[in-house]
């Protein structure tokens, strides 16, 4: 099979730019899409072709399956890269792309379905011999929920089966609280995900979020590109990611990578994906969920492995084998990624849309900036708040952090409030610099 000759990039912002770059490096043409708000964007300028797909709200453009397929058809694209967010984990979109005779640069729809429902994903992980956090079957009524919670022991988390990405999760510390929370959680899950099914999990004390980057091809090869530590979060949204995970025992590192590979093999996975784990203070790890797409923080793994993950995605979609084996993969140094968002950290992280009047990017050895913005662009209120990702690599963790401190001093953004001041404090923080933190550490710091 020859590879795709023209790829429709069904996304926007920095990941659209990232995918277009990978297409060009592979000698493949790219088709950009844009909404009203994104007419003059960087990805539109970088691509060979660009198609207007609708109005600014995502539901009328980047989530419009028909408009995207029409854009692919009118430009004679033969493959679609969904990026992350939007339709990237929508199995109906994956099927629609295949039914239109196009190659989806991602996993088969069946794998998206298996991992998309969190309760099914848990059962699948167990069947693959991957440990999961002790939890319940789906619960429909309060009596069943309370019985399950008693067996697990409080505190527990009420989770939406159809949730993901940190959404649809509510902590509960007593039976009385469960009676309050369960109906609300079910109603919320129904309205947010179209499915009110909930289940319970034991709430681990002070867990770390550690995830494993995977690639899988059509030739039976599944490799992991080590782990990332994404424990620095606010409201379950990642702000800072790094690799390797500090303080992780070599044996744990190896076992967690093997567990992720085992799960990918079990579900017949293809292309790039990430298995997310919670790791407790004894370094026991538990499956949390699998993201069946490229992730925001993929450059961290690229930095320590030297692998271009999006280039590998294109290879795999073309039916070629992954360009290296597990044994050939060498981890070098350490890397950190900072998500710079248009939010005001001094004002409750209030969204801050507006025109970016100054945009001076940092540089130097080991410094990478991924962004879809240019000076003078407007950060529109319609999409997520990300301005840029700053990725810094160093020969060791200390050098990566020091380079990040320097890069943040150079990085100048004016016109919108942003998270650079918070990141400057974070990368200079003694506790973070000296070792691992857990997933509620940042929120405790902010209080």
């Amino acid at each position, binding site marked *: 099979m020859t590879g795709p000759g023209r790829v429709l990039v069904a996304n926007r912002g920095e990941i659209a730019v990232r995918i277009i770059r990978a297409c060009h490096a592979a000698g493949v043409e790219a088709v950009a899409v844009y909404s009203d708000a994104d007419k003059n964007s960087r990805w539109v300028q970088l691509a060979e072709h660009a198609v207007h797909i609708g*109005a*600014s*709200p995502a*539901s*009328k453009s980047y989530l419009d399956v028909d408009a995207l397929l029409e854009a692919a058809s009118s430009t004679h694209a033969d493959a679609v890269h969904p990026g992350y967010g939007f339709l990237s984990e929508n199995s109906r979109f994956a099927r629609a792309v295949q039914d239109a005779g196009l190659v989806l640069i991602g996993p088969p729809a069946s794998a998206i379905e298996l991992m998309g429902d969190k309760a099914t994903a848990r059962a699948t992980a167990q069947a693959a011999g991957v440990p999961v956090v002790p939890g319940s079957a789906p619960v429909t009524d309060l009596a069943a929920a309370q019985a399950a919670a008693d067996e697990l022991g409080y505190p527990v988390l009420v989770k939406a089966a159809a949730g993901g990405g940190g959404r649809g999760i509510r902590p509960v510390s007593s039976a009385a609280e469960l009676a309050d929370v369960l109906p609300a959680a079910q109603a919320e899950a*129904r*309205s*947010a995900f179209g499915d009110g099914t909930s289940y319970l999990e034991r709430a681990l004390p002070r867990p770390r979020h550690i995830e494993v980057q995977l690639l899988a091809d059509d030739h039976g090869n599944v490799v992991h590109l080590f782990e990332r530590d994404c424990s620095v979060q606010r409201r379950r949204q990642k702000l800072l990611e790094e690799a390797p995970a500090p303080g992780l025992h070599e044996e744990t590192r190896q076992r967690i990578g093997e567990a992720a590979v085992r799960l990918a093999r079990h579900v017949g996975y293809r292309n790039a994906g990430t298995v997310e784990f919670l790791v407790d203070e004894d370094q026991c790890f538990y499956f949390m969920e699998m993201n069946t797409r490229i992730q925001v923080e993929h450059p961290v793994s690229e930095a320590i492995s030297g692998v271009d993950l999006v280039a590998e995605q294109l290879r795999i979609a073309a039916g070629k084998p992954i360009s290296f084996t597990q044994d050939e993969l060498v981890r070098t140094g350490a890397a950190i990624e900072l998500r710079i968002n*248009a*939010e005001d950290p001094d004002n409750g992280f209030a*969204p801050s*849309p507006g025109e970016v009047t100054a945009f001076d990017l940092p540089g130097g050895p080991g410094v990478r900036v991924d962004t879809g913005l240019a000076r003078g662009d407007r950060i529109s*209120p*319609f*999409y*997520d*708040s990300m301005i840029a990702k700053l990725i810094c690599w160093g020969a060791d963790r200390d050098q990566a952090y020091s380079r990040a401190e320097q890069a943040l001093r150079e990085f100048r953004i004016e016109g919108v409030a942003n998270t650079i001041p918070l990141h400057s404090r974070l990368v200079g923080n003694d506790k973070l610099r000296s070792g691992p933190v857990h997933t509620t550490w940042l929120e405790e710091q902010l209080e």
Partner: protein
Amino acid sequence: MSTVNATLPGVFYRRPSPEQDPFVEEGAVVQQGQTIALIEVMKTFSEIKAEQAGTIGRFLLEEGDEVEAGQGVVEVVSP
């Protein structure tokens, strides 16, 4: 009669979620501080509340419309 304005730019919604009924219908009586609509800004939702008690007149926007900061959202008739 007064007009309630959007304080943020974003996407305008009259319903808490697509499957649910609108917060208020035209002609309904609202109390001060009652939620009338939502504006979605960068995936976060802000409530638009009645600045004073009154009767909801005419909505100036449709569900899912783009809205600018300062733009009128709904007319409210004072009692």
